[in-house]
């Protein structure tokens, strides 16, 4: 297993380089001048009337160099030294921009995903075990309804009901004005985390149910039952473990989201996380900031894939990864 993990990590390095290279070239080659985009439209002329200033700025930022290899190699060298550069719109180091957002995103997303997993998988298993019961029909209908409802609709309904009408919870953001304590943050977390958890739990219910039904109809489960094992033992010890394998893939795919943030949810709840940062970087054509985000999210995707592979091995001992064996 150890050698397998090391081999996977080594394979991930060129993949990550490929991701950053494609991202870098695409961003630099995209239409639109990032320098002009960083200037207020109303006063653009002040800059445009001095093209020499614009050129000097372009030179200072290295935008006048060939994209590959010059600009990319320079960027990569800086990254290896821990320098992701500066945002051309906020003029702050990218590390600082991302560093202040990741904790908020992790706080929201890990809570929401944990809730989604804690609710979605057991409910999926339960509906599979009680197939065609009233509970199965009811929970399935609810899961389909929630899975097909856009997150912004749920978010706005939640804000309207619980914040605007009932005044039970705050509408948005991480903190109340003038407060920065953890209890206050937890209160602010309830609405966005619940909405995200619901949205993510719904497909987990559907996948878990389908996977469990598949496993429950397999021959080895029938054999286990015919041996006289109790339903509880058959489901928990024999069926659930195999039934979880496809769910691991689904959960692994959700992990990068924990880093990348939920764009729409963060927007609705004014949650100052990575999702909002990515939107701002894209709309402002801030190439260094976008590359920083690509690097972090790309790493998260590769890490999640690695976790998924390890998860398969843990869930199913038949899976053999190590060539030496």
């Amino acid at each position: 297993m150890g050698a397998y993990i090391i081999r996977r990590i080594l394979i991930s390095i060129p993949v990550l380089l490929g991701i950053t290279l494609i991202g870098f070239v695409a961003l630099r080659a995209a239409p639109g001048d990032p320098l002009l985009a960083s200037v207020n439209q109303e006063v653009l002329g002040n800059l445009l009337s001095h093209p020499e200033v614009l050129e000097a700025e372009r030179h200072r930022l290295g935008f006048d160099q060939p994209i590959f290899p010059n600009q990319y190699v320079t960027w990569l060298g800086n990254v290896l030294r821990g320098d992701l550069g500066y945002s051309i719109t906020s003029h702050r180091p990218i590390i600082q921009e991302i560093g202040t957002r990741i904790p908020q995103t992790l706080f929201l997303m890990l809570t929401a995903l944990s809730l989604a997993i804690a609710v979605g998988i057991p409910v999926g298993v339960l509906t599979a075990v009680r197939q065609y019961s009233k509970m199965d029909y009811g929970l399935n209908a609810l899961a389909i309804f929630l899975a097909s409802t856009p997150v912004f609709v749920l978010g706005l309904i939640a804000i309207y009901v619980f914040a605007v009408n009932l005044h039970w919870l705050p509408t948005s953001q991480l903190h109340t004005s003038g407060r920065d304590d953890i209890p206050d943050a937890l209160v602010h977390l309830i609405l966005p985390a619940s909405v995200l958890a619901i949205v993510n739990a719904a497909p987990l219910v559907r996948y878990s149910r389908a996977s469990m039904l598949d496993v429950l109809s397999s021959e080895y489960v029938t054999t286990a039952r015919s041996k006289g094992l109790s339903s509880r033992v058959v489901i928990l010890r024999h069926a659930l473990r195999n039934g979880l394998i496809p769910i691991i893939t689904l959960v692994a795919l959700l992990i990068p989201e924990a880093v990348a943030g939920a764009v729409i949810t963060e927007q609705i709840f004014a949650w100052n996380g990575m999702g909002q940062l990515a939107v701002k970087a894209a709309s402002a054509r801030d190439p260094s900031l976008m590359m920083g985000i690509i690097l972090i999210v790309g790493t998260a995707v590769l890490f999640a894939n690695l976790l998924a592979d390890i998860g398969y091995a843990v869930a199913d001992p038949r899976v053999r990864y190590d060539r030496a064996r």
Partner: protein
Amino acid sequence: MRRQLLTLAAVVGLIASACSAAATPAPPGATPAAPSAAPSAAPATPAAPARPSVLRVARISDFLPSIHPVELGTGNQELMADLVFNRLVDVDKDEVTLLPSLAESWTASPDATVYTFKLFDKAVWSDGIPATVDDVIFTIAWSAQNPDAFKQLGIGSWLKVKGADKVKGTTNIPEGLKKIDDHNIEITLGSPDATFLRRIAGAVYYILPQHVLKDLTAAQAETCDFCLGVAGKTPGTGPYDFTKSISATGATLTAKKGYWKGTDSKIETIDYKIQESSVSVAQLAAGELDLVIRVPPAEGPGLANVPGLKQLNVPGVGIFAIDFNNKNTDKALRQAIAYAINRPEMIAKVLGGRATLNYTIPPGFKVYDDVNKYEFNIDKAKELLKQSKWDLSKPFRLSYLAEDPNFTVTAPALQQYMQDLGLKVELTALPTAPYSDLIQKTNDWEGALSFGGSEGVGWYQSQQYYSCPGLGTAQLKLSDAECIYDAQFDAASAVTGDAQDALLHKLALSLNDNLPEIYLWQPNYLHVYSDRLGGGFAIYPNERESFKKILDWTYAP
């Protein structure tokens, strides 16, 4: 399992701590923000302390998270700068009357060339260093030495100081700056300008602390701690200090105790939020905000029934206009389009009446009797179109920013009017970067929708759009060969009274006839505020200047 749950709880707790820490970096030397809630137990005194007043503010518009004048380009920055710094003079809510700011008095020579200022003796920076004429000289000299560093709003009035053009790239002081003593200065302009005092009341003209920035280079002006509004590192002479650094989501400002002007602000803390309009509207409805400037007018009816909120629906100082690519259009075509657009109908049916009709001259100008009002006349429009050189087989390409709701609502209606005229109108909606590229670098467009500005404050506010070289002189407005308006604005600035009025009249008629752009209407702005705001609370017509008299405001927590 129990251990796993504990581990999960610990991870969530750690991230929550990190979030709290990230949200409020503890700045060295910063005034600690007052707690918002009364302590749960008050052992020494039976009565709980009064809640500190935290004014929660949002202005729905763009923002650049910087405070140095080189990057000061949005109204949100201007409002913050007005709280932390002082200009030499300020302006009252009538946008005309000048008020003391760092200078307690001033004089102007009859020819509007020599200005003297007497600074308040007691003026000090947040760190206790006296604010003197040296700071004024430093501010003006640095601007003249580094004029190209200003990427957003220009500081044209500082560049009018005599000799300013000769110190660019040096460390010399313009000859027009004369220190009389620590608190008195004489400023001589290179040419007369009767609007000088009003112009330097703008936020971008705030006085900088020499003792903090004396070694600052132009490149450093974008990234230094002071420049980014880092709490504890941004001393000002204004009534507030940043106690939570500027970020993309706003800043927190706390009132100084023992402010040198003799009166402390009655509002202890201002939580200034930069956020989406939908978030602000929801927070208003839930009682989480006290003042929102520029609420989308369509939200007005929905917020009207929220207890404790008041509304102010007023004409803004900005303008909605069609800018023309003058290389692709001629005067007859522009006039034809002006006649073809039924502006009263647009305002009534598309904008729900929430705009004020404009007569195609900049809104800061007087509406002279002989100004052509271009009242809707489709026959005359078609006649003019025939006289123009426009090839009717070509599409008229009308461009606008895709993400701006001001355009997405109006562009199709404008397209319809222009098609009724006989033009083939092609709408091009683009995001910011490609839009800028299209307008500034190509000739592949005929018209562009524009919105905003502050032309309504005064006629002089329009000069920046006609400066030569200036805003897109190659395409927007008039081409280089016809660069005729800048000098006329300068000439009007140099005189006062009837002489000025005569020049402005001529300028207005020229703009009205040539139509480098069609000024269509001034959109109304909706401001919503809590009834707990009182005292001298007022929103200026140019709402970007509304904090200039914050010391007079009161707020009942």
